[in-house]
């Protein structure tokens, strides 16, 4: 079976190579040579002089090169008719003059799929990988050492737009380089205004009813929740999914007043592990008190996304931690039930009035998801680079973000986006604007500097997202990479530590364990290697900052 797969992959590769070569009619395989052959418009000049063709290069290329990529293929018949002629994946091939062959084995944003791992195991790689090497065990360094991917530094002449983008965004530049400074992938940058996607929402009409303002401090919140419970008889004053305590600092709007987050964050260049901090104890104690007083959802540990959404939408809950994508649904349901129902966002809470919030749910730092990387087995390094680079060029960015000019969006004479056309905002088939946009463009999950993700959101949701904005700035723990020794230690110890912390903290909050046991808990996590792992993260962080 594996043999068969590798055979098929090998065949594909051969076919791909042949297609690539037929253009120049030679057996070009070195970057320099293929550069000459496949540049359609300047082919003749180029073949005379051996100089690089960078400045004169223009898209599209001559269409003779086919690149393989690990994405799932599509049937054009499955695309709605209104979008079929301008479907993003067709357009990007047409505009770049590079044909793509989708070989399947797509990978997730953070986790690696089994199909993808089988692809790695087969030993036959596509020209480009679309996956997350930062979360790959051992990180991009290991991926290079193991011979899956190659650094892009040697091909910078074919990546002018990316080079410019990286030099303008040094913080992002750091996230796509290894500790020794090699560029391993092209980043997907989330645009301003979408860095914070999860936060607290509150029933504004209920606040009015009990005569309170939108809470600012943790005490305000306590007051509001108590008023909801006692004056309005709200059964679930505050609800959220338990997992937000552990993931993406999404519950930090509650833990920020205590100056802590889970698991790692940075303060004055020092990496901190939340549960080891004194503030974390106070945070857990507060949550436990709230739970005991019935302010926190009784079902805290068992509610999932849809339950939280349902509880908030049907008026059972007064405050919830929500993702922005779900807020609109809740508002729709609430206002349909009663037009006077109102929802507003709550900024990250602080301890004392006037304090600056420390944390938020933060997306700005690129985590390595949906990156494009060049495999070691590509025979068309130039075409791979040109393809990657296209998404950083002005026209490439517009295609990824808005689709095709004159079809899905209108532009001014400089080519700048002005607005979407009716086909998006008032779709003939009744598709939601974001769905329609998804056919013409690839606004998310693709390596390019994304634009206007919230453009199609309602004003209400946009203003809620505005309230969530809090610059985590230097506090955020960046996507560091580990040496193979560090990886081994982490894989042996971290999962146990993490499980233990999650379990015990949950029990403290639910009141199953008394807060008196906190010191024992800290002793126990130290014996599980919390400090050793912290030192490891510190070392990785120091290397990251030195990049």
């Amino acid at each position: 079976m594996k043999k068969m797969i590798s055979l098929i992959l090998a065949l594909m590769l051969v076919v791909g190579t042949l297609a690539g070569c037929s253009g120049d009619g030679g057996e070009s395989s070195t970057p320099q040579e293929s550069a000459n052959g496949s540049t359609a418009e300047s082919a003749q000049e180029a073949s005379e002089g051996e100089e690089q063709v960078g400045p004169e290069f223009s898209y599209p290329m001559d269409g003779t090169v086919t690149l393989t990529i690990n994405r799932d293929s599509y049937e054009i018949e499955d695309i709605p008719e209104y979008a079929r002629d301008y479907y993003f994946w067709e357009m990007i091939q047409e505009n770049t003059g590079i044909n793509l062959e989708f070989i399947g084995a797509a990978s997730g944003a953070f986790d690696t799929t089994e199909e993808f791992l089988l692809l790695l195991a087969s030993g036959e790689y596509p020209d480009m990988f679309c996956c997350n090497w930062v979360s790959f065990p051992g990180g991009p360094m290991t991926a290079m050492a193991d011979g899956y991917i190659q650094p892009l530094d040697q091909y910078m002449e074919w990546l002018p737009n990316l080079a410019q983008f990286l030099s303008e965004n040094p913080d992002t530049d750091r996230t796509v380089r290894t500790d020794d400074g090699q560029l391993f992938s092209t980043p997907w940058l989330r645009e301003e205004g979408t860095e914070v996607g999860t936060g607290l929402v509150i029933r504004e009409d209920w606040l009015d009813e009990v005569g309170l303002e939108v809470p600012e401090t943790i005490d305000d919140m306590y007051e509001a929740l108590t008023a909801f419970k006692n004056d309005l008889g709200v059964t679930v004053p505050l609800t959220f999914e338990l997992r937000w305590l552990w993931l993406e600092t999404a519950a930090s709007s509650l833990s920020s007043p205590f100056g802590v987050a889970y698991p790692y964050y940075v303060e004055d260049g020092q990496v901190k592990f939340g549960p080891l901090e004194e503030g974390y104890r106070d945070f857990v104690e507060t949550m436990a008190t709230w739970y005991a007083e019935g302010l926190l959802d009784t079902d805290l540990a068992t509610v999932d996304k849809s339950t939280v959404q349902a509880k908030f939408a049907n008026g059972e809950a007064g405050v919830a931690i929500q993702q922005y994508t779900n807020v609109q649904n809740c508002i729709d349901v609430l206002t349909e039930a009663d037009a006077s129902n109102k929802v507003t966002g709550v900024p990250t809470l602080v301890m004392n009035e006037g304090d600056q919030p420390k944390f938020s749910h933060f997306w700005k730092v690129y985590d390595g998801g949906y990156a494009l990387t060049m495999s070691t087995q590509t025979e068309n390094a130039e075409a791979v680079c040109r393809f990657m680079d296209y998404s950083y060029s002005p026209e490439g960015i517009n295609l990824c973000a808005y689709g095709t000019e004159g079809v899905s969006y209108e532009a001014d004479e400089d080519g700048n986006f002005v607005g979407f056309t009716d086909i998006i905002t008032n779709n003939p088939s009744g598709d939601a604007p974001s769905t329609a946009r998804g056919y013409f463009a690839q606004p998310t999950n693709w390596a390019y500097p994304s634009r206007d993700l919230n453009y199609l959101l309602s004003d209400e949701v946009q203003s809620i997202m505005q309230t969530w904005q809090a610059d985590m700035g230097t506090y955020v723990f960046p996507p560091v990479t580990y040496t193979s020794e560090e990886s081994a230690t982490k894989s042996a110890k971290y999962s146990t530590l993490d499980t233990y912390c999650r379990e015990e903290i949950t029990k403290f909050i639910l009141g199953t364990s008394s807060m008196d046991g906190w010191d024992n808990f800290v002793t126990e996590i130290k014996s599980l290697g919390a400090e050793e792992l912290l030192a490891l993260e510190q070392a990785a962080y120091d290397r990251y900052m030195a990049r």
Partner: protein
Amino acid sequence: MVLAHDTFRRRASKDMKRNWPLYLMVLPVVIFYILFCYKPMVGIIIAFKDYKPNLGIWGSPWTSQYGLYHFISFFDSIFFARVCINTIMISLYSLVFGFPAPIILALLMNELRSQKFKRVVQTITYFPHFVSTVVICGMVRQFCLSDGLFNEIGSWFGAQPQSLLQVPEYFRAIYTATGVWQGVGWSSIIYLAAIAGVDSGLHEAAALDGAGRFRRIWHITLPGIKPTIVILLIMQIGGMMSVGYEKIILLYNESIYETADVISTFVYRRGLLEFNWSFSTAVNLFNSVLNFILVFTANAISRKVTETSLF
């Protein structure tokens, strides 16, 4: 010896000549087993190695501690005792409550005289088997909420509402009860088939002698399906150490790890989510060895006591 060997050979070739179509027919099956069941067993070796896909099974380095690193790290884990006990307890619950349920259902159904009613009952009891575990668990989670169905029913009897999936003591009961509900109809099919094979003459004779229904069930039906029961029991005992992770992962949460975390969920978090295949293989190998010992013991006991056995 030589003679015996020769005779066997001669007998075999004679048999081959006579029955070659049969041999031809069995050949694909034999090849299937060699290719897909025996050859992959070589892969067990990665339990003793640090498996890296690009290095392959043979190229990956052996682990430290004489290749036993992954086993030792499993035994050393602070969760080792807990996940083993939980696995055994959940298996025991399933065995004690889950195993007799389909037998009882089959016996009851066999006594039904109205064919129409019987068919309705069968359809209703089979149905949950065809619903995906994900959906079942989603329903169970909703029912267990503090304002869910179970608490609603509990409140009729004056019980305080509480989030049932946050109480460690309840998890095994919820897991087993929903398991029985989901599987009882489907598992009863094999017993119904066995009951159908019991000689109806015996029933008539017993009825003539004045034996009541329970007498007949006890003395005719049950002994008639005893071999089926014993074989299925041995097989279930052989699976004691392996409780599937899907249903537990869909039901559990941090507050009930204490009783809900089993070997497979532990491996799922530690092995699969971190691509640690060698570790997962080591734990599963440990599991399989224990399962094998259990099935072998159960088989030996059963051979002695009931004279029915798997092998």
